[in-house]
């Protein structure tokens, strides 16, 4: 019903509806800021626009809408991922106005950049073409560099932004190189067409190099090992809401690119038993194993909580990369579901860090000593987020990891054993990760802090944390809330 109304408003442009709204917001924001200096108005305007986009996306998702306009395809997959990106954007904006780290003087530019970055993500999610994906990714990346740099008074931020921009630029070059080689071989930039061409093609080492270039290029974006070096510096240097945006939003976009490009391409190749498919799967498996292991092991040594969360985020990307090795519909569904749960648990953890920074607390894990006495709700929420990240039932992280690791063991009735070792590595890693998550819990609950003064945090933070908390519990106990859409999204990749 609602979807029909949306269609009657947007007409042919319905597939672009959410993008149009976010785009309008991005373009209008610098202007709005000029009229009067009230950043709260800017904030409220953005929030409403995002909320509208979210509602539209949700309606289209529930309705099962699929459509195409000028090569932009809106499917179950795009609407689901779109929802994810919009949720991240919503939470980031919700807390930004009351965070001390985001510069209010540039509210218009700041929100505009956030919307621009999200527009890129939305664009990526509905692309089926290497070039449009590239454009979307770049839109997000360039906005992100600026977002990191916007925290101007902090030297760490400038350094991080420069690092981010240089490494990002390099990864862009690599990706473009890979794409151009692939175009040279196949004569197309459309993923389905490339797959069809490669299926009947005697693979040369050129295709291999093209693949490796693209994997490395996008590997930088998702901070897969060994392309992860920038991530901890950037997450540490950026304002915490921005760190959250990058860790939950832009990283998911990178993973989405992998799914859209490689999963689609390689599943097509698997049918023709192309040797390239298997080799790439093994490559992904190795990257996944290294990503989670390095992420988790290095996280143990961190004393700064933002860096610890950054490394844990690297590890989580490693878990999700399992699906690229496994390459089954179940795996894709489990991966997308894990992306969702990750948004809430990692987002929640970053939000708490951000909220505590606003309250004057430091970023060191040792600053969290005795937090349970000072802010019982925040400490309890943090504990739940961290336990969820570690995969302890009945929280969302456990359920999504359960589906994820299960998909590595095999399809029902066909535990083929190829990727069981990967599941083993992942489960072992889960156990390692518990160690550093538990350390924060220990600091909050068991060690005594210097003061017992109560901490007050801004209301928007409280609201955002509460949203995350609700979903971390609900998705753990009742994953069917969105898991059905995750399963259905696989078909959307091939429309």
């Amino acid at each position: 019903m609602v979807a029909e109304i949306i269609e009657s408003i947007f007409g042919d442009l319905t597939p672009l509806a959410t993008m149009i709204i976010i785009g309008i917001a991005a373009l209008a924001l610098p202007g709005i800021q000029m009229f009067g200096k009230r950043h709260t108005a800017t904030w409220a305007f953005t929030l409403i626009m995002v909320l509208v986009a979210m509602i539209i996306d949700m309606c289209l998702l529930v309705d099962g809408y699929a459509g195409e306009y000028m090569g932009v395809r809106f499917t179950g997959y795009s609407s689901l991922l779109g929802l994810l990106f919009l949720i991240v954007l919503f939470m980031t904006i919700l807390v930004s106005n009351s965070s001390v780290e985001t510069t209010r003087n540039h509210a218009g530019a700041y929100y505009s950049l956030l919307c621009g970055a999200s527009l890129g993500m939305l664009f990526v999610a509905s692309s089926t073409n290497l070039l449009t994906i590239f454009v979307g990714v770049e839109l997000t990346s360039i906005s992100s560099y600026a977002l990191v740099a916007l925290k101007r008074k902090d030297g760490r931020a400038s350094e991080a932004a420069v690092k981010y921009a240089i490494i990002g630029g390099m990864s862009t070059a690599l990706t473009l190189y890979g794409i151009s080689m692939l175009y040279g071989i196949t004569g197309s930039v459309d993923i389905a067409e490339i797959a069809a061409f490669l299926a009947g093609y005697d693979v040369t080492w050129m295709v291999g190099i093209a693949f490796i270039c693209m994997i490395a290029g996008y590997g930088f974006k998702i901070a897969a090992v060994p392309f992860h070096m920038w991530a901890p510096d950037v997450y540490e240097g950026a304002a915490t809401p921005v760190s959250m945006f990058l860790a939950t939003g832009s990283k998911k976009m990178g993973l989405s690119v992998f799914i859209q490009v490689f999963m689609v391409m390689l599943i097509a190749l698997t049918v023709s038993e192309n040797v390239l498919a298997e080799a790439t799967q093994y490559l992904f498996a190795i990257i996944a194993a290294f990503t989670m292991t390095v992420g988790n092991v290095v996280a143990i040594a961190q004393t700064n909580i933002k860096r610890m969360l950054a490394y844990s985020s690297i590890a989580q990307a490693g878990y999700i990369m399992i699906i690229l090795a496994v390459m089954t519909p179940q795996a894709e569904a489990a991966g997308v579901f894990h992306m969702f749960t990750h948004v809430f648990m990692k987002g929640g953890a970053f939000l708490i860090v951000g909220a505590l920074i606003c309250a004057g607390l430091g970023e060191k894990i040792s600053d969290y000593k005795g937090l349970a006495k000072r802010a019982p709700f925040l400490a309890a929420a943090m504990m739940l987020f961290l336990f969820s990240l570690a995969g302890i039932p009945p929280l969302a992280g456990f359920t999504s990891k359960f589906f994820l690791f299960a998909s590595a063991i095999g399809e029902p009735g066909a535990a083929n054993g190829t990727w069981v070792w990967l599941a083993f590595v992942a489960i072992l890693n889960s156990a390692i990760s518990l160690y550093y998550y538990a350390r924060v819990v220990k600091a909050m609950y068991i060690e005594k802090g210097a003061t017992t003064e109560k901490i007050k945090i801004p209301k928007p933070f409280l609201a955002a944390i509460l949203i995350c908390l609700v979903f971390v519990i609900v998705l753990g106990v009742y994953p069917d809330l969105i898991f059905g859409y995750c399963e259905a999204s696989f078909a959307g990749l091939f429309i």
Partner: protein
Amino acid sequence: MILSALIIVPLIGAILSLLMGGSREKLAKYVAIAFSAITLVMAVLLTFGMFGDFADLSESFVWISNDAFVINYALAVDGLSILMVFLTALLVLLVNIFSLDEHRENNNYFYALIMAMEVGLLGVYMAADYFLFYIMWEVTLIPMYFMISWYGGPRRHYSAIKFFIYTHVASLVMLIGIFAMGYMSVAPGEAVDMSFEAVKAGIGSASLGLQSLVFALLFFGFMVKMPSVPFHTWLPDAHTEAPTEGSVLLAGVMLKMGSYGIIRICVEALPDAAAYWQWVIIAIAIISIIYGAYGCIAQTDLKKMVAFSSISHMGMVMLGIGCLSDAGITFAVFQMFAHGLITAMLFMVCGMTGHKVGTREIPLLGGLAGRMPVYATFMMIAFMASLGLPGLVGFWGEFPVIMAFYEFILANDVLWMLLFCMLSLMLTAGYYLWAMQRTLFGPETTKIDLSKAHDVGHFEFAALLILSILVAFFGVWPDAALQFIEPYTDLLMGVI
């Protein structure tokens, strides 16, 4: 709905006592007692068939259903679990009563943790779906972690982390086994039904090699929990540092999760694999029995000694299971129950030693019987029950298991193995009697100041008295418990 109620009532208790912060802190303990009492009453009524035959009371709802999985919220009780349910409900109430004499900082958290643990424990014993089973298994872990690290002894942080990591890693290995079981039990393309029934029905078609591999994974997970040598090292540390209440629940019911899992999952669902690994199980059991008992002799801390004795006694349970015979498993289950009652007494007594005398170091103690006669009486009952004195419950746990093992020895013509049984009995009697002689009797110690030592308090007395009565009752009339176990083992024998 009675089975769900058994989980929900303590859950409400946990939440309520958690909320009793600040000025209402003292109320928390009464809330906990009230809710655990209701739970116990329900458990008893359930046992005696007030809600109909408990074996017919299963509950099952589809919880998560998608292309890959069907996960159920399924609860069921049978002869194997009913005693554990009763034991859990009983010990939680007694622990709550026992702790009334003591005042702690943040009482409300303490009782909330106990009640949360009860939720998990009852959940484990009643779950009839692997997913639910695993969740409940993990639910027990977190309250215990906090129990040790908030309310424990001086080295509590170390012990709590060690406990957490050991058991969590073990449960992750178990999780892999559970995954594999699920996948092996369905035909290609079907969704995996995680309920006990469905998995058991489907798994028989898998090859023996795969089954034994899965068995090994699951067995490892359970064995760490029991715990068996060489994965026992977390237990003495956890026990030494945990508060008395934590130790009681840890040894009384939490260790039983391990042996329960072995019977319920490893033996019941994978009987062929169990036969395949039989010798390994028996070897591990014997090593645990002897090593645990031997370790006891070396301990100077009374509580640590009891902790080591748990390793030995749980080894006895594993020995019974390893026989894979009717008598072996029946009395292994009985031993689980008996050990639950006895060890609760043991830890209460040892915990009191620390509080009332000031130290638990055996070499510093001596002649306590004169100054604290009631305490000494309970300690003697507990020790005698644990070493297997006829007429007390421990006797029916240990000796029939050894008899069952004897049958196994005869059948396999390995008479020399009898040596181990004799050795274990001798060691057990030895360390208990020696410990008693050094702490209770002889001249009163002059190494510590006994002037402030006081005898058992009212509430402690009540808890210990109830346990003593039960220890004697089931010792004289073991059939009161065996009547529940036997129908289950009869059914199980049909499968094996």
